[in-house]
């Protein structure tokens, strides 16, 4: 009876969003009377940070401080349409819509400021600190707040913008079947080290090393947060979680958190992450979005590492001690693949 070490590798090319049908999202941006900007979306922040990232994108595009931008995702009944928060599409699809809406609002902002300063709007620039100034003449300046007041109470002008991002629907070539199901891919490679106890069948993940290419990391700490949490969920799916352990037989299925297994704080795995940034051409400021692929490659890497450790190829998830032991029994003993 022994503990066998195993190492498994997996990589992933992950499509951002789903192209069929265009996968559209819309955004509306408008200024309040005091020169703050409101971004209205129907996309929901599930905790992944979409509100933070769209706020950054809007502020960067408008040329105003991020603290002067608010993101409202209150109600998909009354807000601009969005396909939703799924398929790792939030940053890419919604971010692009926000850029378009904020660009239109910025144009209105500069036109209103130009009227106040009696200059041409094309001669104006923002300093990102809440001021609009004449290029090369920083003395000729007006605040965004004063511009908003003048626009809304003197000029009779709204500082607002509309944005939609829609990928041209991809038709299938009738001769070749060729199509473009997705326009933007993120990538990752991941190595899992683990130990398998050939007496109990228990698998313990000891370390994860990963490299993720997510375009530009628009908010590096949020990216890291998703990668850490997502890998934990991947380990959980690989080794613990199921609603039907003997599918299609429903017996022994968990009914509550007492019997639905998940790793707890005591099973935290050391995870070393390298984030590689290759800004994507059609992505907002180059950011693709880590999303679901934080969890995906962990599962095949764990399965490969179990095979590497004891020679048992599990083709159903989760990889329970029972499956490992039955596999070892069928093989007539543990068969470590290669020396480690």
């Amino acid at each position, binding site marked *: 009876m022994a503990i066998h070490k195993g190492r498994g590798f997996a990589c992933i090319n992950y499509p951002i969003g789903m192209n069929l049908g265009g996968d559209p999202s819309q955004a509306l941006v408008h200024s309040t009377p005091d020169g703050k900007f409101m971004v209205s979306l129907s996309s929901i922040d*599930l*905790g*992944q*940070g979409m509100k933070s990232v769209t706020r950054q994108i809007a502020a960067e595009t408008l040329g105003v401080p991020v603290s002067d931008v608010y993101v409202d995702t209150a109600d998909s009944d009354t807000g601009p349409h969005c396909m939703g928060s799924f398929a790792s599409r939030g940053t890419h699809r919604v971010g692009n819509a926000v850029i378009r809406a904020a660009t239109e609002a910025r144009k209105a902002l500069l036109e209103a400021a130009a009227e106040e300063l009696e200059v041409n709007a094309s001669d104006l620039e923002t300093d990102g600190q809440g001021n609009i100034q004449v290029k090369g003449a920083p003395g000729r300046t007006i605040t965004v707040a004063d511009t908003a007041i003048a626009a809304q109470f003197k000029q009779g002008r709204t500082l607002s913008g509309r944005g939609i991002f829609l990928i041209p629907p991809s038709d299938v070539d009738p001769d070749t079947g060729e199509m473009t199901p997705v326009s933007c891919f993120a990538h990752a490679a991941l190595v899992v080290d683990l130990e398998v106890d050939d007496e109990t069948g228990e698998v313990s993940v000891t370390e994860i090393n990963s490299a993720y290419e997510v375009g530009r990391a628009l908010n590096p*700490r*949020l990216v*890291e*947060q*998703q990668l*850490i*949490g*997502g*890998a*934990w*969920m991947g380990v959980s799916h690989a080794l613990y979680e199921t609603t039907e352990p003997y599918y299609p037989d429903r017996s022994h299925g968990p009914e*509550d*958190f*007492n019997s639905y297994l*998940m790793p*707890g*704080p*005591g099973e*935290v795995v*050391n*995870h*070393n*992450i*390298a984030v590689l940034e290759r800004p994507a051409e059609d992505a907002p400021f180059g950011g693709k979005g880590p999303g679901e692929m934080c969890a995906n490659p962990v599962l095949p890497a764990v399965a490969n590492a179990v095979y590497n450790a004891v020679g048992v190829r599990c083709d159903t998830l989760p990889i329970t001690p029972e499956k490992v032991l039955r596999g070892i029994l069928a093989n007539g003993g543990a068969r470590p693949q290669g020396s480690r």
Partner: protein
Amino acid sequence: MTKRPVQFQLNGSPVAVFTDEGQNLLDLLRRGVGDLSPKFGCGQGTCGSCTVLVDGEPRLSCLTLAETVEGQSVETTNGLANGPDLHALQEAFMENFAAQCGYCTPGMLMAAKALLDRTPRPSREQVIEAISGNICRCTGYEPIIDAIMAASGQPVRRAG
């Protein structure tokens, strides 16, 4: 249904309310008092999101009969901040990105507060033990453990 008066301290202020027979503390806090910071997760004491402190001890408020806190001191996440000044644990949770969806966060904060009140400089193992009754689905726990270590003034072992 019999109504019964119950008086206790909630985050340092006296509270006097009527509790229904068999009402649990979580329901009394949320519906009776209007403190929505403790969360209803499973309702059977397995997820920890309803954790509050009763006389300094972490309690699953969904399994605590409301009338049993008569004369006792109850603390919830709503009482952590002092006006605009966040509690050290709240600051540390923010700095360490220890929340994503945030549903487990009130329970985590109260479990952590109970630990730090008793053990100001806990070991990492003690932190893990203290939050082992609280389920988090998003963070993978590591940022939460880091945040509690940071709140106790100890170095954080960062991933990556």
